[in-house]
């Protein structure tokens, strides 16, 4: 098998850290919105925002890392349409890694709640309190989040398909323990 390079430990670590945070924050977001108002709900909303800011920062770090480190090439066996789909979905994933936290922050500002990272670092409000705008941004944030959730599912399903159906190393290079011992 020709050497196509591997992901480094940093890229792998950042990928799984971001993955865990994104999945957890999706679940928290879905859970918290239907709760009736309570101190717990206020805490969950704050945690959700803090996690969102963290995901945004982590994504910026990953993007910089990705731009300065070459990612391993896709397997030669992949048909052109799959390569195109892989590239498109990765671009879209990165776009949403930024767009979802950004719209969440804008929504929060328009709803009249500043985001204070970990209750310590106030993030300036770009928007003033505005109910109509808040309603629109809430819808945008939610729609983009559903889009991100769908892409995450597609991404994971494709990775599993590579491993199980195509028998290539696409999943294994992000999950090193899957690699066959040589």
């Amino acid at each position, binding site marked *: 098998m020709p050497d196509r390079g591997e992901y480094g430990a940093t890229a792998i670590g950042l990928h799984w850290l971001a993955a865990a945070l994104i999945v957890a924050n999706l679940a928290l977001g879905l859970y918290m919105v239907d709760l009736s108002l309570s101190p717990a709900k*206020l805490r969950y*909303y704050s945690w959700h925002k803090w996690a969102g800011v963290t995901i945004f920062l982590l994504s910026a770090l990953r993007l910089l890392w990705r731009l300065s480190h070459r990612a391993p090439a896709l397997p030669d066996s992949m048909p052109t349409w799959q390569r195109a789909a892989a590239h498109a979905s990765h671009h879209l994933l990165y776009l949403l890694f930024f767009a979802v936290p950004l719209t969440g922050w804008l929504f929060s500002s328009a709803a009249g709640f500043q985001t204070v990272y970990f*209750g310590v670092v106030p993030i300036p409000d770009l928007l003033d309190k505005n109910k109509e705008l808040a309603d629109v941004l809430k819808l945008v944030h939610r729609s983009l989040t559903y889009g991100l959730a769908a892409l995450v599912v597609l991404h994971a399903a494709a990775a599993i398909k590579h491993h199980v159906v195509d028998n290539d190393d696409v999943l294994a290079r992000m999950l090193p323990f899957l690699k066959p011992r040589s």
Partner: protein
Amino acid sequence: MIARLLAAAAAALVLALPAAAQAPQKVVAEKSHIRFAFKQMNVPVEGRFRKFDATVAFDPRKPEATKAEFEVDLASIDLGNPEGETEARRKPWLNVEAFPRAKFVAASVKATGPGRYEATGPLSIKGTSLTITAPFTLADAGGMRTVEGQFPLKRLQFRIGDGPWSDTETVADEVTVRFKFVIPSTP
């Protein structure tokens, strides 16, 4: 003769009275406000009361003769968020059904500097009455008198936010009340 003199003196006194003690004035509601600010998960949050009533008889030359009463319609709370407003009207918070109005009576007012005063008196919210002191400034312009100031209060002293809400890690105990009242100033 003496009786007529006495009557004249009495009449003069009566006539002089309104000039000495200023007639009570209603505040101009649309130019006045009662706002409050607190921290929720360390995030500054502001709100206001849409409806309130105030009657003020104030003479800057005789601040100690002030008579002022302020009443706030607590159900008119505006947090810019209907979920929060509904919760604030409920029993654990303001319990507006049982205690629809908050009241402050300026029992004493004293000058603390040029254009600066301090009002002290009982503030009653949700069945609890506590003495507070509110510093304020005063400015006269165009036949209108503007009174502006703020004071801190601890919400839990008035049992505002009972039960699970008494956790001050989520909603801080300290609330800053900011007020501005515009009153027609009689010459």
